[in-house]
């Protein structure tokens, strides 16, 4: 009896106490809780493949340079200045003085050498090794000066050195943890504003403020990344006050969240371009007029606002805005003109259209499946009967990596984003003929010898103006050849509680909340 009444009392006190507490304004929390959609696969900078994971790793480790998105260039971080030899084969970096790793050892040229030699070692798992594979040798000139000797000019190298993959690791910490264990343990191994404390698999990653940080100290003592795979649950947890920030709540809820007085929706355009690839080696799509007709037939602006809730910007070039080398080709994107589309189809010999299969993933990009259905409906207006089919992502990847003789692709939805802001990523990756599957991931099988030579030259010359010119030419040619239906650059977004201020979104699909504060 006594036990039962104790339970009743306890239950009653919970009922009375908790709702009141939640309504009152809260003091700044000691720990900032951020709901992320996926668990980390690896904490090792070298092994990074996913921006969200890299985003968490960025709290712990730092790179030599950091991206300056506003200026479209790179800025000092662990390196304070650098010089590039005239032939573009020697990069000499002056390192920041007085920086220590979280384990107390000092950051110096040896640590840089250790990090890059590890990145170049075939035994290390480095999926994005292309970022640094032009480096032939790392020379320590003195304690705070390091030189990279390249095997070929690499105009993207400085940009590449801003990505998480190249973050500097403490050799002493790595020896203590064991290089293979850096995958799951980052204890005291970086120079970043936070240090690794705990990773509970499938649940959370906890980092605490680095007391010896060389830069400005962040506001929160701890940051906990909570793994919440379901977008609706992330939103609910934010509304319930369980977390202070949630990445990518469900897109259809974005408008409502914008109107919610307790929530701030932070969004920004990114370099992820969403397109419908057209297999330029399949049937009617071999004809550029047909591909142009597809572009005329689709009303991108209408789909963007009605299906995508305005979470994007219609592209006006194959390379999205904000990248080095970007040049707009057609203001406002390819115009919507179904009459012109029908006319081009008739000219190409398809006055009554044709049937085509249309593959799309589901849930990989914002509203991807819904977008495919809307596009198919608009194509039907000009006589193109596209049948949409979808599949889970791993099977989809198997489709888009199939070689030309085996591919089932005719038209397909895909999104492409690069880790640094340079047109090389999308132009070379998607339109250079060397990148046709299975070698690369350019499943439109676009082939143009001139474009190939421009892109080759642009990734080997260090002449900045020359590169810009080459990319302009390539963008114009590709746009006219229309191996894609050019859609939009996708926005990235997070929702935060109103009290959290100073959060921003970067163009490479990361949030920047290190210096967020509580209001």
């Amino acid at each position: 009896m006594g036990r039962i009444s104790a339970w009743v009392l306890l239950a009653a006190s919970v009922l009375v106490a908790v709702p009141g507490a939640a309504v009152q304004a809260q003091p700044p929390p000691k720990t900032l809780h951020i709901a992320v959609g996926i668990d980390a696969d690896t904490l090792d900078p070298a092994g990074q493949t996913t921006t969200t994971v890299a985003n968490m790793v960025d709290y712990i480790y730092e790179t030599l340079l950091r991206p300056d998105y506003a200026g479209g260039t790179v800025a000092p971080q662990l390196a304070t200045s650098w010089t590039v030899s005239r032939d573009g084969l020697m990069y000499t970096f002056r390192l920041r003085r007085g920086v220590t790793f979280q384990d107390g050892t000092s950051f110096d040229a040896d640590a840089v050498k250790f990090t890059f030699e590890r990145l170049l070692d075939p035994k290390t798992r480095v999926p994005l090794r292309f970022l640094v594979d032009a480096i032939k040798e790392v020379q320590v000139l003195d304690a705070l000066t390091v030189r990279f000797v390249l095997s070929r000019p690499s105009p993207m190298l400085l940009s590449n050195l801003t990505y998480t993959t190249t973050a500097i690791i403490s050799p002493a910490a790595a020896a203590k943890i064991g290089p293979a264990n850096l995958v799951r343990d980052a204890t005291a191994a970086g120079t970043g504003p936070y240090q690794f404390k705990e990773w509970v698999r499938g649940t959370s990653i906890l980092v605490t403020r680095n007391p010896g940080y060389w830069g400005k100290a962040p506001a929160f003592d701890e940051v906990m990344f909570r793994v919440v795979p379901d977008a609706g649950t992330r939103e609910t947890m934010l509304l319930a006050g369980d977390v202070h920030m949630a990445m990518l709540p469900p897109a259809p809820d974005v408008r409502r969240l914008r109107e919610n007085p307790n929530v701030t929706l932070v969004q920004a355009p990114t370099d992820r371009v969403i397109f419908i690839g057209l297999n330029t080696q399949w049937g009617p799509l071999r004809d550029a007029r047909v591909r142009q007709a597809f572009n005329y037939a689709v009303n991108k602006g209408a789909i963007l606002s009605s299906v995508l809730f305005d979470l994007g910007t219609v592209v006006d070039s194959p390379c999205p805005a904000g990248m080095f080398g970007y040049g707009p080709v057609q203001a406002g994107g390819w115009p919507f003109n179904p009459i012109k589309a029908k006319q081009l189809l008739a000219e190409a010999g398809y006055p009554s259209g044709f049937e085509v299969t249309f593959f799309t993933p589901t849930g990989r990009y914002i509203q991807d499946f819904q977008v495919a259905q809307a596009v198919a409906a608009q194509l039907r207006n000009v006589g193109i009967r596209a049948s949409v089919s979808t599949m889970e992502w791993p099977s989809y990847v198997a489709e888009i990596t199939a070689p030309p003789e085996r591919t089932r692709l005719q038209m397909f939805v895909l999104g492409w984003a690069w880790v640094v802001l340079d047109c090389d990523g999308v132009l070379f990756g998607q339109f250079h003929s060397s990148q046709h599957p299975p070698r690369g991931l350019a499943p439109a099988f676009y082939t143009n010898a001139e474009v190939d030579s421009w892109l080759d030259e642009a990734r080997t010359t260090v002449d900045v103006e020359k590169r810009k010119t080459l990319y302009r030419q390539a963008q114009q040619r590709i746009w006219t050849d229309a191996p894609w239906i050019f859609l939009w650059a996708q926005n990235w977004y997070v929702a935060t509680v109103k009290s959290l201020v100073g959060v921003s979104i970067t163009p490479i699909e990361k949030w920047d909340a290190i210096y967020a504060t509580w209001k």
Partner: protein
Amino acid sequence: MRAPLGRYVVRRLLYALPTLLGVTLAVFLLVRLIPGDPARLIAGLLASDDEVQRLRVELGLDRPMPEQYARFLASVLAGNFGLSAVTRTPVIEEIGIRMRATLTLAVTSTALAVAAGLSAGVLAAAYHNTAVDYAVMMAALGGVSVPVFWLGIMLMLLFAVHLHWVPAGGSGTPAHLILPAVTLAAFSTAIVARMTRGSLLETLNLDFVRTARAKGIGEGAVIIRHALRNALIPVVTVVGLQFGTLLGGAVLTETTFAWPGLGRLLVSAITARDYPVIQGIVIVFAAMFVVVNLVTDLLYVAVDPRIRYG
């Protein structure tokens, strides 16, 4: 003539070995028959072909199938199921971390389901064809029909967003357990209630119950002490099956509530085509099912002494 318990258990476990061997072959082939290249999926779309190839070699996917199967069997015998292709952690370790969460959730929701389901079923049978019976059966119909992701979100909105009684999702404290356990228990509770009611109604018509009543025993004692015990066999079967299923991880509930269980690990392993993890989890599931079935059979004997080990 009763065979000793120990020998019975050992024999049952030995019978399970060919089953488990079959499971290893089935899962080994299944993961390789579905499309999707693990090396490409793990390395990501941006990785160059060379890196993907390197990864393929690292993961042993370039080896002939029989060799891969032999290595897999060796890792099963070694008890670690190999290394996760993604995290390079022993699979057994990955499973161990999630097993605690899954066990906690499965045991709690089964306990809830048994407590609530038995009580409701007994009530419904005792008040057969009255408003109580109809109400219980309606609720049970609801319980089997409502999808967990809907129920979960509704409970979350009410108890986490509006009332702030419990956290919406995540894990770590007992409070985190409440919503997922209740959500997960809804279906099992309904099944147990229906099964208890049906079985009890049948038993209540039997001769020995009439005898008990004729002796003047109170209705409550007749139902609880005499009829219920005899009605439990099918209920035990259902609970055993349900529990076995829950041990396999409740994918939807775990995803909805961000609960770090085995079901979610399995789904993320399938998404990454992490063969060793998929294989390891499926074998563990199969083994757990064997054990749960065995325990269920032993419970029969405890419930009804007329049943013998055989």
